[in-house]
């Protein structure tokens, strides 16, 4: 943000985001759909995330203190409103929860150094080099999906030769910085660069996140919302979810919803309701 840039683009910086059709003429707006009816809670996605994004294994001690580093966690809830002491007649409720890549992200405004900010393709990015570790972003995140490096993991999480597994496309984070799901930005950048070199837009299905790629039931759909024909855009449209709306006006039998929409975070992840045969 140079000073001249700031002055020149002052009016655009003052625009309230997100606004309708913000990404209509853009090349990319990455988004996701997670079908909770297909999700079985098997944890394949979380392991894929560890493998792709160099997530450290923190060990029992740190895990018990709540210092786990799983960018993507599978939550398991029991029936709402019921007490724990009954049987869960309709099974468990699994929820894969990762950074929702909010369009109006509570973390972005409060970061004192601008280490987390919004990218032009709609990602909520995290700049490790800029992060000073105030953890204000985590404090203000309603989803609590930001993970802080409480320890110097590069020294302890990958004893030789485990470090050879580290993905060279992804930074290994040192102590004192915040991190979170990036929608596998290294894959997106790679695909965008390739497409740009070939003078085209990234095609639907050409790039996907590690979690979506692994998911045995294909519960996760990832893609470019700015591309009308992409799978993700079509599902969003069919589910009548609008990115820039905090209250969706949609048909009753549609399953799509976003979590904590009422907080006006405008998440980029749409969940499809779990379905249960109530007669069974």
């Amino acid at each position: 943000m140079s000073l001249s840039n700031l002055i020149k683009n002052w009016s655009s910086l003052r625009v309230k985001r997100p606004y309708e059709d913000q990404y209509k003429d853009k090349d990319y707006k990455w988004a996701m759909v997670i079908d909770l009816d297909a999700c079985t809670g098997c944890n394949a996605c979380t392991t894929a995330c560890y493998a792709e994004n160099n997530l450290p294994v923190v060990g029992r001690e740190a895990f018990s203190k709540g210092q786990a580093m799983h960018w993507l966690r599978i939550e398991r809830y029991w029936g709402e409103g019921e007490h724990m002491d009954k049987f869960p007649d309709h099974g468990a409720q699994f929820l894969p929860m990762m950074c929702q890549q909010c369009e109006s992200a509570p973390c972005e405004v409060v970061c004192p150094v601008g280490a987390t900010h919004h990218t032009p393709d709609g990602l909520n990015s995290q700049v490790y080099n800029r992060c000073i570790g105030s953890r204000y972003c985590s404090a203000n995140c309603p989803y609590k999906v930001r993970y802080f490096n409480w320890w110097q993991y590069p020294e302890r999480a990958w004893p030789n030769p485990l470090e050879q597994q580290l993905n060279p496309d992804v930074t290994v984070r040192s102590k004192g910085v915040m991190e979170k799901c990036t929608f596998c930005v290294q894959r997106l950048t790679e695909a965008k660069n390739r497409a740009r070199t070939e003078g085209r837009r990234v095609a639907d299905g050409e790039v996907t996140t590690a979690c979506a790629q692994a998911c045995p039931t294909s519960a996760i759909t990832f893609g470019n919302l700015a591309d009308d024909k992409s799978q993700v855009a079509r599902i969003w449209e069919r589910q009548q979810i609008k990115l820039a709306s905090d209250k969706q006006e949609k048909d009753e039998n549609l399953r799509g919803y976003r979590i904590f929409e009422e907080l006006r975070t405008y998440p980029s992840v749409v969940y499809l309701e779990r379905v249960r045969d109530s007669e069974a």
Partner: protein
Amino acid sequence: MIHTTDESDIQIERRFVPKAKDISEDIAWAQINKDVLRSMERPRLMYWVIFLASLALFSFGVYCEVYQYQTGLGVADLENPQVWGLYIATFIFWIGMSHSGTLLSAILHIMHADWRKPIYRFAEAMTTFSLMTAGLFVLVHLGRVWEFYYVVAYPNERWVWPNFNSPLVWDATAIGTYLTSSIVFLYFGMIPDLAICRDNAKGFRKKFYWFLSLGWQGTDRQWANFRVAYLTIACFLIPLAVSVHSIVATDFAVSQQPGWHITSFPPYFVAGALYSGCAAIITLFIVLRYVFRFEAYMTMPILDKTCRLTFAIAMVWTYLNLIEYASVWYGNDEYAKQTLIFRATGTYAPYWWAMNFLGSIVPFALAFKSLRNHLPTMMVVSLLLNLGMWLERFMIVTPTFAHGYYPWTWTGDWWPSWVQWGIVAGSFGWFSMLFMLFCKIFPTVSMYEVKEMVYHRFMARKARA
């Protein structure tokens, strides 16, 4: 300043003379100099006890910080979502402490409350040192403290600015400004006294005070400029003090979390700040009075007034506290209500009830004159009030993390590690160490202003002669 014997002039001054005599008017100016300068020579044994105890605490805090710095913040048992722990709670506490100095030296100065004169100097020192302590916590809690300067808007090659939307940047700016202004104010008000020190000191101390007193001769022109400048800084400092704690409040109020997203937070924080600051003044008043044999200057009537002031602020705080609960209770935010109920009934309920008891019930001890004039009682009460105010800050930070929006990350039994407690204890050591050093090196009682208080007596004597 030109002293006249014009009776009408005295009449005008008299309007501001309090009914109860704050200090004996029999003290000669020379005696004042002697008493105050003596405090810089041989304090009671208790001075060394307090100083060494502070040094020990501070050293332990440094040890904890070095350990944390080298190992990572994990040693503090911070976690997701309890990302701040005691550090931010204690940060607010120290910021709060800093407010009473400004209250006494600036606000009461403008209001011509003369009883503040013997005690404002140490209150002002308290402001400066507690701000410095608070600043330390900003550094201590950072994950990468070695990059702390990223928060400051400094010119750099890439034109990378801090994020001006972030209350933390406001914080850094406000605290920096307030700290600078406080130091200037403290130092500036001390110049005439430093000249007295210079005149009475020998050896290297003479050089030291000679340097610091900036060639003060006590000429009329110097006094006239001094008065104007002092008043100007005082006026500048008052809005600054209010803004600093308001901004600290916005750290929470601007965020969206249940229990923090409350409009009344800025005045609530300012009231809490004045409250804990005044309580701390009572504590230090009693300590200094004993340690430096200041019984003649830090008198019971002055303590009485300070206590009454504290009681008034305590009631304001209680009111704003109730407002906070009420606005959550009657609000539409179900989650904020849950967090409030969690505070009152959950894991940290004992501390919540203790906070309310210490903050709102214990101050009623200040309403009784007999208790107000009993030093040991006041010592205990003032410490309890500050404990209550520290708990208040703890209860702002912790339960929101423990019981926020996202149920999956609720924590039932989070408790800080010894490293956190060590650093918090170290901060108290650091503060009292600095404060004790200050008292030994600088005049803790404003000599020239106490002289103003006994001025009438002096004038009478002069008239007799």
